[in-house]
């Protein structure tokens, strides 16, 4: 669905989305990474379970909420990818986190 303008000169890092390994450019947002890797949803809504992808990319709409490294409800468009990041599609409302 999205591709890089110029995919030759960028530094890449490895991360996982839904358990699959991907390489994405350093410095992009989690939302951009999910779009670049061709996923057709980042979450299912809590109300009707309908699929959503990032909509505004600027922290306004909260449609890009995902689970990152086990922590749910993260704004994918506001966070940068890092090496070995584990991104998971969020199904409905987030569960309460276990006590740490």
């Amino acid at each position, binding site marked *: 669905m999205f591709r890089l303008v110029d995919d030759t000169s960028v530094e890449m890092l490895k991360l996982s989305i839904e358990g699959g390994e991907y390489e994405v450019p350093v410095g992009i947002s989690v939302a951009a990474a999910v779009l670049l890797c061709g996923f057709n949803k980042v979450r299912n809504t809590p109300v009707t379970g309908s699929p959503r992808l990032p*909509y505004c990319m600027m922290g306004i709409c909260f449609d890009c909420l995902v689970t990152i490294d086990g922590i749910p409800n993260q*704004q994918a468009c506001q966070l940068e990818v890092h090496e070995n990041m584990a991104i998971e599609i969020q199904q409905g409302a987030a569960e309460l986190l276990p006590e740490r």
Partner: protein
Amino acid sequence: MKDHYQLLVIGAGPAGLAAAADAARLGLDVALVDEQNTPGGQIYRNVGSAREGGRTYLGKDYLRGKPLVEEFLQSGATYINNASVWYLDERLETGLLIDGTSHFVTTERLILATGAQERPMPLPGWQLPGVMTAGAGQILLKSAAMIPSGRVVLAGSGPLLLLIAWQYLQVGIKIDAIIDTTPRPGFSKVLPCLARALPAFDYLLKGLSFILTIKKAGIPVYKAVTDLRAEGHESLESVSFTSGLGDGNKRTEINIEAETLLLHQGVIPNLRLPLAAGCELEWDPLQQSWKTVKDIWGQSSVDQVLVAGDCASIVGARAGELQGRLCTLEAAHQLNKIDLQQRDRAATRIKRSLQRHLSIRPFLDTLYPPAKAYQVPDDATLVCRCEEVNAGQIREAARMGCVGPNQVKAFTRCGMGPCQGCLCGSTVSALIADETGASMEQVGYFRVRPPFKPITLGELANT
């Protein structure tokens, strides 16, 4: 980072950058808070990493942000990046969420420069994966050098739609259609504004060059479009609409396959923090949006709170930058750093330049009004994307006697989700006004309450 600054500026777009840089130069103890990793706001997003001669496809106006960012970085102002403002009250106590920890900061003067957001464009299917705002398309281009790889359609109204079309053409991607939903305002309305916009002829030339480039590229442009719909099952498959152009104004039903649909119908002030600070708003019938009441210096209705740039009313990047500078002069005067004469002397040139940049606005606002169909959508159209409330439910609540958005929220959950009404607020007010016959001023807007951003109890406890 300290827990108190003489001056706190929120938002690192053109207005905030200019305000903070000038404040540091005047010797004020100033901090600039911003949610992004790098300065520039949305308009100059990621501009610091633009190399000489690189990324020319974004246009000259984008690169104008580079010296401004450098001016700020060299000014000595404290820069607090990656910080979300999750709390703000009328005593100007500001809660920041930085890397999982909450911090509270107080200040003597607050300059809000939180910019604009795109006007919501609720239409059937706008929640489908594959439908995004035109601004989102631009952010992907600016911050990640990403472009749509499949069939892409741009739809809506306004200068930003032309700009992104121009930028995509510079990159060399094919745009499958541009769908223009602008209602025709008529020459009698536009011409007087055009005459007044002549001092800003550079804006007019830029717009013309965009239009010519799009024409030359041979992109199919559909005008006078109504009944725009995004269609698909799990994600966007096609875009349908009725076009008014063709043989003898015959209306034709058209369906275009698309993987990506970028929507836009102008921008509106991002009102969350002005509202949280208790600033008075007023309805602007020309811009069809709320604006923050302020004077020429940016002084809002709340003592100690100043507003600059698009978060007050839509003025664009250049005017926003100048308004940021005026805010700082006023704040510096209020804090006894400069006297009245020094303030006024420094402001003379800024005000003259501001006047010129503002002169284009009535023309743009008149030429590109938002279409009514996407301000008061059909009953079945989703209005609140978070809680999935449609226009029919809001109309029903209004008929039941809900006189304002806050009552509608209580009855329908509309605006109660994580975006707190950012994507439905303007539509909800417009629907209530339309249904009850009340004015927008009578209907009013959602109240905002902290936390503005989801914050866990753990993060709060980390203060």
